[in-house]
Every structure is written in C-alpha cells, then in structure tokens.
C-alpha cells in the first residue's frame, strides 16, 4: 500500500506547523473549556470527599451515637467547626484554581510580549 506523497506531506505540515496557528484559537476555546470542566470536577470530587451534603444533613445528629444533651451540644459545635474548617479548605482550593485559571489565560500573551520586548531591546545572545 503506497499513499500519495503529496497528501502525506500536507498532513505532516498541518500536524506540526499548522498547529502553531491553531494554538491560540484552541487555548481560549476548547482548552479553556477543558480547564473549566476539570476545575469543576476537582471541586466536585473534593465536595464529595469532604461529604458536605452528609454533614449538613446530620448537623443536629450527635456524633458517635452520644444521644444525651451534652453529647448533642458537643457534636453540634464540633460539626460546625469541622464544616467551617472544611469550608475554608475548599475555599482555598477554589481560590487556587481561580489563580490557575488566571495564569492560564494570561500566560501566553504576557510571555509573548515579554519575549518580543526583550528581543527588541537587546540581542540576548550577547547581552
């Protein structure tokens, strides 16, 4: 089986050089969407791992089966503390993802500008 050499050359060029042109378009459409999906997935997983839904549902249920009033009180306070603690954890994680997203959006143009700017100022090889 022999393929047309022209088609193969076209394919190789489009897959390598062509992808440079596709890069910016993909970065702010498909890529950004994928990142967003990934972030949502990660937060969702964390939400489930921290079992917020279960803890909120059981807010007034005493821990370790301590059904006396002191047990209930301690449990309630404990649950609030844990919920708040985990909430803070989740918040920081979400914040980190936000920073990551910003970095994602800004890095390519900034890096390009910096590179071009630096190049125009001096020839870096002899700088």
């Amino acid at each position, binding site marked *: 089986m022999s393929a047309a050499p022209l088609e193969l050359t076209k394919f190789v060029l489009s897959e390598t050089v062509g992808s440079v042109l596709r890069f910016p378009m993909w970065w702010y459409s498909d*890529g950004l969407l994928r990142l967003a999906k990934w972030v949502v997935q990660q937060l969702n997983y964390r939400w489930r791992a921290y079992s917020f839904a279960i803890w909120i549902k059981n807010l007034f249920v005493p*821990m370790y089966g301590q059904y006396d009033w002191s047990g209930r009180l301690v449990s309630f306070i404990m649950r609030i503390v844990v919920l708040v603690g985990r909430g803070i954890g989740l918040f920081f994680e979400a914040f980190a993802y936000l920073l990551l997203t910003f970095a994602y959006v800004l890095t390519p143009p900034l*890096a390009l500008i910096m*590179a071009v700017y*630096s190049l125009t100022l001096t020839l*870096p090889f002899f700088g």
Partner: protein
Amino acid sequence: MPTNPEIMGQPSPDGILYWEPQLEPVVFEIRKMRKALHAGFHMFLGLLTVACFGLAAWSFVLHEKPADPFSLAYLFSGAAPVFWASLGLLMGCFFIFRIMAYGDQVVPMPTWGLTQTEILKREASESTVGRDISRHFSDAAWETIRFSYDLTHKTGKAELRPIHLFSSALSGPAGGIFMTRLGMDFEKVREGLINLVREGEAGEKPVLAEATKQVLVEAYLSAREFRRKAVGPIEIFLASYNADERLQDVLDAAGYPAAHVRHVANWVRLQEQLREEQSRFRMLARLKPDTAMNRSMTARQTPILDRFSEDLTRMARNGYIPPLIGREREMTELLRAVESGRRSVALVGEPGVGKSALVEGLARRMVEEDVPPELFDRRLVSVNVAQLIAAGDPGLAPQRLMSLLNEIAVSGNIILVMHGIESLVGAGGGGNLDLAEMLAAEVDKGYFLVIATITPQAWTGYIERRSLGTKLIKVTVGEPEPEDAIRILMARSGYIEYQNKVFFSFAALDKAVNLAGRYLREVRLPESALNIIKEAAVLAKREHGEQSLVTGEDVARVIQEKTNVPVEAITQDESSKLLNLEQRLHGRVIGQDEAVKAVAQAMRRARAEVREGRRPIANFLFMGPTGVGKTELSKALAAEYFGSEKMMIRLDMSEYQHPSAVSRIIGEPGDDRGGLLTEAVRKQPFTIVLLDELEKAHPDILTLFLQVMDDGRLTDGVGRTVDFTNVVLIATSNAGTQFIQDEVAKGTSIEQIKTGLMERELKGIFRPEFLNRFDAVIVFKPLTLDDVTQIAHLLMGSVAKRLTEKGIGFRAEDEAVEELAQAGFDPIFGARPLKRVIQDRVENALADILLRQGVNRKDTVVLKPGGEMIVEKYQG
C-alpha cells in the same frame, strides 16, 4: 453533521451517527504515522521548553546579579534570562496544547464513566447533533478495519463488505481468544470464508459498502449498550457476524451454531468490559471510608457485632467482591422494598441460586453510592447467625443478640445481613424465649434494616407464619435461566482460570450449566455449575498441565464421577454394548423377546438423548405369572447397563398395604432423613426403581407414583424435590395371571391378551389413568418346557461358575439337564420349581461330594443322567 451531505446518519441518543472517513491507504498510513509523528514532535517540544528554562538559569547565573530580580525595571530591561524564561513559558503552553489537543486519537464513548441513572436520563433525549463514530473506534478496531481493507484490496474487490470485516476481526487477537473459547478449528471454516470473501464485483479502489457502514454503526451501538470505553474489534466481529446470514450458515455448517458464536463473542467482550469496569469502580471506591466509621461520624464502636460479622461494603471497597451479573429484577425489588419506608427484606431462594451474590452486589452498589438515599453512607454487615448462637453459653444467646442489635441501632449506619435466619427459631436457651420473636420485635421498632436470606422450605416452615415473617418483605430469588447462568459463569471463570492457569472452552461452561441443571439438584444453578467448572479446571490442570483448555468432556467426566449418570460422549465400546443390549440381556433372561426389546430400546433412547427429558427414562409395567423372569430382567438390566445388580432400588409393594406407609417412601415433615425411596434416588439418580408386586400396594401409594411417571419428580416429606428423570421405573404385577395362563393355553395372541388385561382384568385393580402413564405394559408369557430347559442350562452354568472359584470344574450332560428341566417344569410357577429341583438334586449332591473330600483342585465333577455324579480326576 457529516461534511459529505450524501452520508446518511442514524439517529440515537448520542446524536446522528455516521461514519465519516473515506477508506484509503493514506487514511490508515496517516493514522499509523500520526502516533509516531506526534511522539517525536512532542519530545522535541518538551526538550525545547526545558532548554529555554535551562538557558534562562544559565544566563542568570553567568551575568551580574540584578539588585531585585522581581522588579519591573529588571523585567523590562531586556535581560537575557527574562527573554529565555518568557520563551520557555510560551513553549510550555504550546507543549500543553499539543499534548491535550493531539494526544489521544481515540475519543472515549460519550456514555463512558456515567452511572446507570445518568445513562437513563441521556436515553430519554434524542440529540440531533451529528457524531462521527470513527473517532470512538479503538486503535485495535482501526487495525481490524485496515486489515479488512487490505483483504478487499488484495482480492481485488470493489466493495469492503461485512465478511471482510469479520475475517479481519477473526484473525486479530480478540478473534484468537474467540476461537480458543469456542474450540473452533479454523480449517473447518476456511474454505467457506474464502468463498464468501471472493464474491462480489471486482474493482480497483475498494469503498465501504452500505451494509458495512451499517455494521460499523451497529458496532458503536453495541459498545454503547455495554458501556465500553471505545468500540473494539469484538464489537465489529459481532456486528459483522449478525449482518451476514450466509456467514452464519457457513459457521453453522461447520458445527458452530449462531447461539454459541454470539455467546462466546459476548464472553470475550464481557471480560474486556469487566476489566474496564474495575478501573471505574476503583475510582469511586476511594470515596468510601475504609473504617467502621461513616462519613457523617454518627456511628459508634460495635465490638460485639465486629466479632460475629464481616463488613461487606469494606470488602467490596477493597476489591474482594466480584461484580453481580444479571439479577436486575431482584435488585430492583430489593431496593424498592428498602425505599418504601425502611422495610426489612427476606431474600427467599434455593441454595446456590445467588442470594449472597445479590447481597454482595448491593454492597458494591453501596460503595459506588448508586443506591437510594436510605442506603447512603452506610455499611452492609453480614452476621453469621449460627455462630452467634453457638458461641459461648447457649443460655446467653438472647443476651448476645440483644446487645448486637442494640449496637446496630445506636450506631445507625449499619444494614444487617443475616444468612439462614431460620436457626433463630427455637433457639433461646431452652426457655420460652425465641430469638426469632426477639428479632421481630427489634425490626418492628425500625431502628435498623435487615436483609435476611433463607430457603423457601425454611421460609414456609419456620418464618412465614410467625411475627418475623410479617415484618419482612419477601423477595423471591429464582434459579437463573441457563442463558443467564452461562453469563454468570463467564464472568466468574476469569478468576478460576487465573488460579488454575487453564482456559475454559465455551463447551465446558455450556455443559456445566446443562448437566448441573439436570443432574445436580441439591445445590441450584449457578453455584452447582460453578463448583463443577472449578473441579474440571483442577482436573484439566492435573492431566494436561498448565495453559491447557478445559473442554466439555472434562466437565462431563466430573459430573459422571459425581452422579454415576453416563453423560460423557458415547465411546465405541459403550455403543456396541448398547446396540447388543438385547443379546446381553438374553444371556440371563430366556424368551420374553418383547420385554427385552422394549427395555433395550428405552436405554438406547435415553443414552442417545433423543428422549424428552422431563419424565423417567422409561416406565414399564411387567405383567405375568410368577417365575417367568420379570424381576430377573430388571436385575439383568442393572447388571448389564448400570454396572451391578445392586444399582437397583427395590421396593416390595406388599410392605406398603396401608396408607400410612407413604411416609416410609417419601419421609415425614421435619425429619431430615427423608424417605426410603426419595433418599435412595437423591443419592443415586441414575438407577432402576423396581416396584415388586405393585397390585398389593395401597391405592394412595400408587397415586404417589402418578407424579413420578408424569413429571419425573417427587417432593419428599421435607419439601425437597427429588429428580426421577434418570431412573428406569419398572413395576411388576401378578394380577391377571390366571387370565394370562388361560388365554395362552387357548392359543390367544399376546396382543389380544394385553387388550383383555387392560380392558377387563386390571380395571378393578389399577385406575385407568395410572395404567395410561406406563410407556409399555409388557405381558410375560408363561414358560414352555423348552424355555425351562434353557434356564436349566443357565443355572448349571452358574453352578459351574461358583465351583470354578474353588478350582473345581463342573459339567452337566445334556440329558441330565433335560431331566432336571422335566422335573422342574410347572406351567403355573414358571422357573421357580426348577431352582428347588437343582438345589435338591445338584447342589446337595455336590455338597456331599465336596465334604467327603473326594474332589481335589482341577478335578471335574460331571452330572450324569439319573442324577448320578462322578468325579473325573485331573490327569496332569
């Protein structure tokens, strides 16, 4: 939408499905190249990125350090490190883009990774967006298509047809597994396949035939149905097989029927699917806690429970429980019962049908949290009831049970599984306290849920009418259909294969299910069949070594050893034995040609498996005077075919003249020993049941045999159904003897005598519906003098045989034998008086001679006419 408007798509919940790529050599070459090209290019990009950062670091170290490297002034100073680092970042982003956008050519199926509920939701909507299915074909599937293209091209055909796809899939790795499992000899189908491939118009550049496109869409749909990650070669294999009827005919003619082909292909797919499923399950399992504590931390320490139980959800989480196959109906019922207001459930089913498997399946779903909210964040814990009662002082059993239930109630996150709850009934330290009542009261409070398993007999016998029975919702777990049982075996076979390092053929599983379903009724399918294939695997490994194939014959041998029922393929030896059965029976039974022939034919029908399998092998009624060979024929059959005279269950019906004797035959309720007949048949299903002197039994007892003769089964006193489909039922009767003798004396034909018997003589003795159920009513003729002479010869032969054991020869002269026959002939009593005559005249005389020590070893005793006995001395 397809870029080519001529392509028609097929609507589905995933969108309009169509196959986009034109098949050309370049398409395949590009696919192949793509992988290599991208790998090289990505490595180059990766190196470039690293190099940029390296240069940045190098130039930073080499040059004069700035006062503040993070100041804006430095960043905009045009310094070399800033340039290289920026370039590195840019390259890095490009690298990420390349990996993400060009990394994997195969896009996972849209249904991959979704739960059952999510898929159902998806099913409801119909998308109109086009979907090019070629993107969801795995690399191996593409390889199959490429190979089929080559095949079409090489044979110079204009169209790539489903047969090309099939041939290509068959030659791939999945096809190899398929052929091994099916036990397929490729040479047998080669010719037929080549002929099919050679059909069709000639052409230079092959294109996809319309039927082939449809096959590819079908392959996609089937991968979707089975929640595969991508379309694989086995889906192409199945879809192309289903699409081509002539191909099915070719395989069928070679001995591979469509049902088997589909089963085996599904098996190959099932094993691939289970591997994929396992990785998905493991991901979900990480969210489930590995301790007794639930995620909401409401649970409590349960020391007593922990001592008598095992945590099924934990076992499932850690991968010790295999997935549940089938059983959708039972699972839905179980979940519905739990959902409908926290009710406890009893799973009622015969041993071995998979009650535990159902519970374990629930444990797996609880790990995935694919369950109603009532079961969310809970543990499924199985308690061994017998152990709980037996451990320690039996008087303290109620206390142990109470503390255990208390722990469960307080902990609140436990679903209790109790196997064999009937052992609770009557237990309680001998006092008035009954553990079952205690459990019922606790269940009624509703603090926890119980899932109990129990057999139907125990359920009706012990639980149903008690308060515990009213508290539990009954969910019946039936024996799976053979098809489902085979699927279960397919899923479980992987582990057995891995343990024993052997492979199962489809015939092995098929035989295991069919034969176990028929002959091993103590434990039900699928467990009975599972046990058989486990043993067959060990047997095959021992005899043929590792990596050998477990065949249907291995399975048949295991079953034959267990039951004595001949299920192995008929050997040359056995087949000649069967074909000459009449002759062999005549070696012991003189005359009575009709009876001998009927019996021999019944045995041949049974062994060649042409009979209907729902009744005994044969039901015979032997009529005739005493001493004409009725019982002797039964014994002869037992000795010739069943291996020994002892392979016969003989009931003298004169012992069953009172209706109360029924309990002796089938046993009494509550008595596990069972009845004389039912127990004997249960232990030895392949046998002769001889009912001697049937007319003497009480009519109620005869009624019992109506069911045996009609359905081939009998329920014993304990409620177990005993299988009678492998017995030969022979009843003998002396009723109407006078009539037979009179008519024979008149010279009436046997046929007319039989009609007379049935219509008049037997009417008062047996009910017509009873007589009707016999396959044959055989009239034994009274013996003639000639018959008696032959019998005398036979009996002399047996005397000689007994003496040979002592090393002494024996011969009777013909005249002497005739004298004996004359003396022993009695038209009324048949051959019986002959036996007495021989005893008197031959055996007594022999005893005298032997005692007088007049005979040495190797001497011969000769019986002369007139009863004279002489000793011929050994001449050396």
